[in-house]
């Protein structure tokens, strides 16, 4: 169960989230950042390559933007990012980075610096295991390529495999799919919320933002589990209204409703 919010808390106590993304894409890190805010984070900073940071800033006045040096994430950005990590509780990395070699090298340098990190999308292909304090949020294809394992169709067998991978890698795994599987290597749970309308682009970025926000004040397993539940439920509310025309931004709008009893 999630930690209750203290009524005496002040700005920052309920989560400072650093989103590292963008370069190849512009919208993805903004979706993550806005989702984190809607999920209850107090402060969200987006660190993005200078080529896209201005555009991301223009999406919303609620975002704080930190501009990096190049047109993709590069190892030269690591000093700036190291300073930013110290000022935040959770790092969410990967959305919209693109699959360039410099970005992969930068990711490999950044991830070990983070106490709590949510790793998604393009950052997943750059990982080295074991990891500590990490939640990884791959879909089936991403999981198979990062683990060199083939996932069976059978849910029970698939769950056992995810559990074993979580144990061996040290990371909490949130495998996205029709049935999400969440495991910390000891426990494994299934999430059934969500719908086929959520195959639209950007819903994975939203999920990473929710999980990041929850991770600030909860354990990695609970953040991943409850994040998956809330994201799917918000998507179900959006589906009721928009059907297969739902957008990732509709999912974000429904996060507060999905977090209510």
């Amino acid at each position, binding site marked *: *169960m*999630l930690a*209750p919010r203290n009524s005496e808390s002040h700005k920052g106590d309920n989560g400072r989230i650093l989103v590292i993304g963008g370069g190849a894409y512009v919208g993805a890190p903004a979706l993550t950042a806005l989702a984190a805010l809607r999920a209850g984070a107090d402060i969200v900073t987006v660190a993005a390559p200078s080529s896209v940071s201005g555009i991301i800033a223009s999406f919303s006045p609620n975002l704080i933007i930190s501009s990096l040096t190049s047109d993709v994430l590069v190892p030269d950005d690591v000093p700036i990012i190291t300073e930013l990590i110290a000022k935040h509780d959770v790092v969410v990395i990967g959305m919209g980075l693109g699959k360039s070699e410099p970005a992969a090298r930068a990711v490999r340098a950044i991830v070990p610096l983070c106490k709590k990190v949510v790793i998604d999308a393009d950052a997943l292909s750059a990982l080295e295991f074991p990891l500590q304090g990490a939640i990884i949020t791959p879909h089936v294809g991403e999981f198979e390529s990062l683990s060199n394992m083939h996932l069976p169709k059978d849910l029970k067998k698939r769950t056992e495999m995810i559990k074993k991978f979580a144990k061996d890698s040290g990371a909490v795994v949130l495998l996205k799919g029709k049935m*999400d599987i*969440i495991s910390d290597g000891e426990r494994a*749970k*299934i*999430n*059934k*919320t969500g719908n086929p309308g959520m195959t639209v682009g950007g819903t994975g970025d939203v999920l990473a933002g929710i999980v990041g926000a929850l991770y600030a004040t909860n354990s990695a397993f*609970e953040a991943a*589990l*409850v994040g*998956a*539940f*809330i994201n799917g439920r918000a998507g179900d509310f959006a589906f009721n209204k928009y059907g297969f025309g739902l957008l990732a931004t509709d999912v974000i709008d429904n996060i507060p409703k999905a*977090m209510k*009893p």
Partner: protein
Amino acid sequence: MESVTEIITSKQIRAIDINSEYVGIPRLVLMENAGKAVANVVRERFDKGKITILAGRGNNGGDAFVAARHLKGFDVQVMLLGSADDIKTKEAKINWDRLKDTKVTLAEVRSSKDLDKTYIMDSDVIIDAIFGTGITGKIREPEATAIDLINASNTFVISIDIPSGMNPDTGKGEKIVHPDLTITFHKMKRGLIGVPNVKVVDIGIPEEAELLAGPGDFRC
């Protein structure tokens, strides 16, 4: 699959309760199954006699009200600690009301003076359902005196889910019932490790309530 020796925390119990409802098995059903399970265990050991049920105002008491209803043929008195108006949950209230037209004797114990000491001491079985796994705060009256009376009796004492007064996660408490038998529900609690004669009984919590993410995972 995990065996019955798997241990759950009080936090997990609260989550499982909510998630059971979410997957379609409401608390009233679980309460019915729990109370029936208690009555079955009593029948395995006794075939007639006088039973005192000391019940609190929460769901633990509610489980005992169901047990009372299923103990036909026994001479049962339910002593509710407090007034019926103060029963805390909808499910417990429903099951209290269901006892009104039965042969079960109902008493509302508003202060420790109202406790029928002679009846309690003369009973063949005492069922302890004062506090469950949701226990919080200090133990007040008349609960404190009731716990003392149970412990002073030479009667066979059965605690429902957990001995009253015990923190299910630590096994500690300022004042705890010492039962002859504890019937605990669903899975073992950490606090019960080392307590003699604990029986774990199934109350029909669906597997999905623990396997699937649900609102119980984020609501207290």
